[in-house]
């Protein structure tokens, strides 16, 4: 049994892989403390499955916080995204992972080797954080956004791609009496378009795997589907676990 832990900036995701099947999983807040997060995961595993660290073949960490954790195997984000995608869809040629701070798109050859990849370079415009920031002035929960947006009655264009500007734009839209549904729909459209641009920077081919928190968002997924003209496979069952799964399978950096 291998424990894969993806330490994100916001939340830490962990899966227990029992020969390439998910035996257990959990998600906790990182609170800017990777060490503590991993410890918390281990005690949760102990509590829920009475599995001790000693019972584990390996603990493999990946994601933002990996360098801050001692005596565990490490796995690069790109590597874990790729392994996770291939676990989900062995024929995957393109993987898109929409995380909290960044979105990453990887292009693979038929043998699953990395041809190249691109991220939104230090810009939250195509990432979950963007949505979080916008949700605050709109007093809307991130999970509800697609639902809220589905009630939109007119297409709204946001001029800015910068999360911070978008927020002030949202504030003035609210002031202009625009409905939250329409604004949210516009925001999700903006995020989707940023991700689409990113995807088009690599040579996107089928099969195309989509993962990460934003992959839960139907509105975003639909827009991607329409624009990318490739069939999308959503990483399942829960798209934000892709890195944790991939890390466990990769078993760490060689």
């Amino acid at each position, binding site marked *: 049994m291998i424990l894969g832990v993806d330490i994100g900036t916001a939340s830490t995701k962990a899966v227990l892989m029992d020969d390439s099947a998910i035996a257990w999983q959990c998600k906790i807040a990182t609170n800017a403390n990777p060490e503590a997060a991993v410890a918390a995961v281990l005690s949760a595993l102990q509590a829920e499955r009475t599995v001790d660290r000693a019972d584990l073949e390996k603990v493999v960490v990946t994601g933002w916080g990996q360098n801050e954790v001692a005596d565990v195997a490490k796995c690069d984000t*790109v590597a874990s995204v790729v392994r996770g995608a291939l676990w989900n869809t062995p024929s995957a040629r393109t993987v898109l992972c929409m995380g909290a701070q960044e979105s990453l798109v990887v292009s693979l050859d038929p043998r699953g080797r*990395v041809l190249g990849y691109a991220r939104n*370079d230090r810009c939250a415009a195509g990432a979950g954080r963007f949505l979080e920031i916008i949700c605050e002035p709109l007093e809307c929960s991130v999970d509800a956004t697609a639902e809220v947006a589905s009630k939109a009655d007119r297409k709204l264009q946001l001029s800015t791609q910068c999360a911070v500007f978008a927020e002030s734009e949202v504030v003035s839209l609210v002031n202009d009496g625009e409905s939250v549904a329409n604004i949210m729909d516009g925001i999700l459209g903006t995020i989707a378009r940023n991700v689409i641009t990113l995807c088009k920077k*690599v040579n996107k081919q089928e099969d195309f795997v989509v993962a990460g928190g934003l992959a839960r968002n139907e509105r975003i997924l639909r827009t991607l589907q329409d624009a990318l003209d490739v069939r999308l496979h959503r990483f399942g069952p829960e798209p934000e676990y892709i890195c944790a799964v991939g890390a466990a399978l990769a078993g760490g950096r060689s």
Partner: protein
Amino acid sequence: MSEAIIAKYPLFQRLDDVCTIADYLLTQGANDLEEVTDALISMCMTYPEHVVETGLLMNVEVLAASLKPKNRSHVHAHFMAIQKHLHDITDQMEAGKPLVAHFPSMTPEPFIAMDLAYMCAEQLSLYLVGALTDGVEEILDASEADGIPGHSCGFQRAPFKAMETGQLPMPDMFMCTTAPCNSSNMLYQMMMQRYDIPMFVCDSPYYWNDRSFDYFKEEYKRCLQGISELTGHTIDVDVLRERVEMSNRQLQYMYELQQLRRLKPNPDPGMHRAMDLAAWLMAGSNEECITYQKMCYDEAKARADKGLGVIPEGMKEIRTLHTYGWTAHFLSFPDWLEDELGSTELECGLSIYPGELVGLVDTTSLDTMLDGLAWRSFNAVMHRTVMTFSDLHIQDMVSVATEYDAEVALFAGNNTCKWGWTYPKMLTEALQDNLGIPCLTWETDLMDKRFRSPEDVKEMCREFFNTVRMSEA
């Protein structure tokens, strides 16, 4: 050398100090950073305070990289060359010779042959960005506070603000090409308008072809003509020939190095790539420049003959093409790539200077020399690659990639560089999609580490090279 003039201009003084320190450390045998500290302490005894002060501001990573055996002797040679150059400038200034500030797309032989004082201010500020931890960030902030947009290029913003604040001398005239960008053209105009400085503009057409060169060539000669009319200094043909012969020798070594970098393993350390351009910018200025370039060549040749590379024993080489160029505030980056990741630098977009194509300057007559120098400028960095359609740069990169057998490509684009940021997709198509060479693209600021820190870049590259190796396995 004129101590008075050096002392008068803070950036001259800093640069002179940097050279003095480099000389001391690299010859007095400091081998690691501890010894550097000791060396600096012992310098307190014999050197003026400002020298030691400068020592404390120096970029530790660059120092550490310079101390390595594979780098130290040519780094030393380079700083001896720039110090000599600096002293020549100040001598000429003291002798009351008019000062021409020239753009980084021309070599200075004609100014020497006209017996003028000359400097490339962009080049001088570049050294400080490279050598000092905080580079010229203060100056850049000041220019932005003046109201000059932060998205205009720091390459001119820094030296011009330094001139405005008396940290560099205000020149008696400018000579520039209208390559590479709107930003430089506008900033030169600003200086012209504010300080009423005569400017000799060598107009660069937006094509790379014969018709374009014929026009450019005449522009180039017209500028030199204008300068000698303004100053009454005319070109001494014998001096020009002597200097061009010097720069020919220097460039010959540069070309030879290009050949050596095609070998496997690549025997040439990447850290001096930015210094090669800096040396190009003072080609013909002094013997030290030639010594520097020759030393780079001799060292690489010696390694090549033994079949040695520049990466640690047992590490597998990854042949890397830098499709944008070096990052001035992170000069030790190529060295870090070599020793940490086994990545060697084949060529870089900001100092590529295809030798087979540019060749040497024919010294038969004044005309052949001026034509040759114009041809050099026409193909100079930030001229050849900018003043025409993107296709030429893509083409250059593709032929280097194939001829040098590149395995990966890095594009560290300067955030203020508009032409640079129209390339990445086309480069990725040409290199990654067509040749299977993985490309990594990121935003940086040539002049200012605060835009993107070296640590951040290291993280990205670690992951990228891990991924590449993983794919090979």
